[in-house]
């Protein structure tokens, strides 16, 4: 890795290992994501992708190694502190505030954006009322960006599946990410929903958001990624452009098994 590449890296994962007792989920992981880049993390089930996500966002502590974001080490930070640095994740399974309206979900997501102070809130001062109105405007903006503004008043759990996933992204966007980590965002979506999701990702990228994506939908990964990192058995086996990855013998073997050699 050249130093020029390092200078642009917004997120870097260095020598990270994760052991659960005797099980090695990640043996030694090194990769980085540059500013504005879309990097996909792929690999067969159990390769350690979600573990990697959990480590990066502070939900799990690595056995060794370090993760840094914009030059700040994330070691020992709690999830909400990682979020406040601008590194925000979504979850693999739909994870929403189910019983609350879509709009209020996004308002909660905007937590980091609020400037309301406690005393001002209790006294309902003009400053706090203005902050609240601005927050509501931003919530509408995010709902429109994601394309579910017409369902703002629905309960989150009442949305169709694809829209629930979009709301999950809206929640993450509300937390003002400079880098967004998406954990299998289109799994279980139909083709139309996936199409809408890819449009959304294009929109986000045009706004300069850096994205790290974990996904099994290969056509989508190949189409939208700048770079792909392939994990297998907790180890990075390839790191390159979609074209390089498609032709990498080790990747083909990991995905299709030994049989390929004999075919």
């Amino acid at each position, binding site marked *: 890795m050249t130093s020029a590449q390092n200078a642009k890296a917004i997120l870097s994962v260095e020598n990270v290992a994760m052991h659960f007792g005797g099980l090695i989920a990640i043996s030694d992981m090194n990769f980085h994501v540059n500013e504005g880049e879309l990097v996909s993390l792929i690999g067969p089930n159990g390769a350690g992708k979600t573990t990697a996500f959990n480590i990066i966002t502070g939900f799990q502590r690595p056995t060794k190694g370090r993760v840094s974001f914009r030059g700040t080490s994330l070691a020992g930070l709690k999830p909400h502190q990682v979020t406040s640095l601008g590194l925000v994740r979504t979850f693999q399974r739909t994870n929403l505030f189910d019983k609350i309206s879509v709009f209020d979900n996004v308002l909660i997501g905007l*937590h980091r954006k609020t400037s309301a102070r406690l005393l001002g809130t209790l006294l309902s001062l003009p400053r706090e009322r203005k902050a609240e109105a601005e927050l509501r405007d931003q919530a509408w903006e995010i709902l429109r960006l994601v394309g579910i503004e017409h369902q703002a008043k629905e309960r989150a759990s009442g949305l169709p599946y694809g829209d629930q996933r979009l709301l999950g992204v809206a929640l993450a966007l509300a937390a003002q990410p400079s880098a967004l980590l998406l954990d299998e965002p289109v799994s279980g979506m139909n083709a139309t929903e996936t199409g809408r999701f890819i449009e959304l990702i294009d929109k986000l990228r045009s706004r300069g958001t850096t994205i790290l994506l974990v996904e099994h939908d290969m056509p989508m990964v190949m189409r939208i990624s700048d770079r792909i990192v392939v994990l297998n058995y907790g180890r990075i086996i390839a790191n390159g452009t979609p074209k390089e990855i498609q032709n990498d013998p080790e990747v083909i073997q990991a995905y299709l098994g030994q049989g390929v050699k004999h075919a």
Partner: protein
Amino acid sequence: MSRIFPLLVLAFFLSVPLWLTDQYYLHTLVVCGIFMLAAMSLNLLLGYTGQLSLGHVAFFGIGAYVSALTSLGFNVSIFGYQITHEPWPPVIGVVLGGAAAGLCGYLIGKLAFRVRGAYFVIVTVSFAEVTRLIALNWIELTNGPLALPGIPPLTLGFEPIGYATLWSKGANYYVVLTFIVITYIIIKRLIDSPYGRAMIALRENEILATSVGISVTRYLVLAAVFAGTIAGVSGTLYAHYIQIIDPMIFMFLNTVTMVIMVITGGKGTLAGPVVGGLIFGVAPVILRNYVGPEVQWILYGALMILIVFVLPEGIVPAIERWFSRATAKSAELAMEPGKGARS
């Protein structure tokens, strides 16, 4: 409608002492209001952050004892030092009582929210039991089981205007009503703000809440401080109204009463503890006119079980749902037939 309705309710309660001449009923309403206040504070924890505080009476009792001792004065020796406190006005007692209970809320919050769910319940129950044992055994300070009698009633006023001591039930009624209205507004503003939303987010989905940047301890502790302070203030009002307190104030039944008020009324709703408080504060007294004491408590229990079975979410959410369905139906009728259905 939703703006006018609370004002109508307020107007009704403002008028009560004008036509309710029976002092016993008025007394019932004052005590009911004091417990309603405590229930509203419990609702902040139980309803909005989803943490069941089964030692809530501790905050109530601490408020009552601190305020009583502030206004009565005391003389104790701690580690050989003699500490003497001259009596202060009851109003200062109310402030100190609320502050002391709020501080306890902070400490309990900091400690207990490391462990949540069932463990939090155990910590709060233990806390209440410890405070009860202190009140019972620190006889030099609290008089122990012999109670603290002669607590002065609240005195309001300023130097140039003169003072008024609240001896009458009517005056105390208005004081309690004022505190309820203020508390209602405080909780409403809190809940409609990012602070309250953070609390609700933690109740609904803690992992997701942290992932959007909400600090778990910060907001749970904040809720505990508010809940502790409000419960403490309600305790001070109790002490100055009843004018005698003993360690029985810490009994578990008082916590249960608050929990019943919150759950039957509707936890996590602003009006829930008010409605639940009215029903379970006033019901025993009204029943007394019609049936004997044994049947009274059986009916009380049956009413409680009935509400929990028929309306598990509580009375207020049920009414809200019924009301929104009724308005939706009338709106649908107003539209062209066939266009009412959603796509």
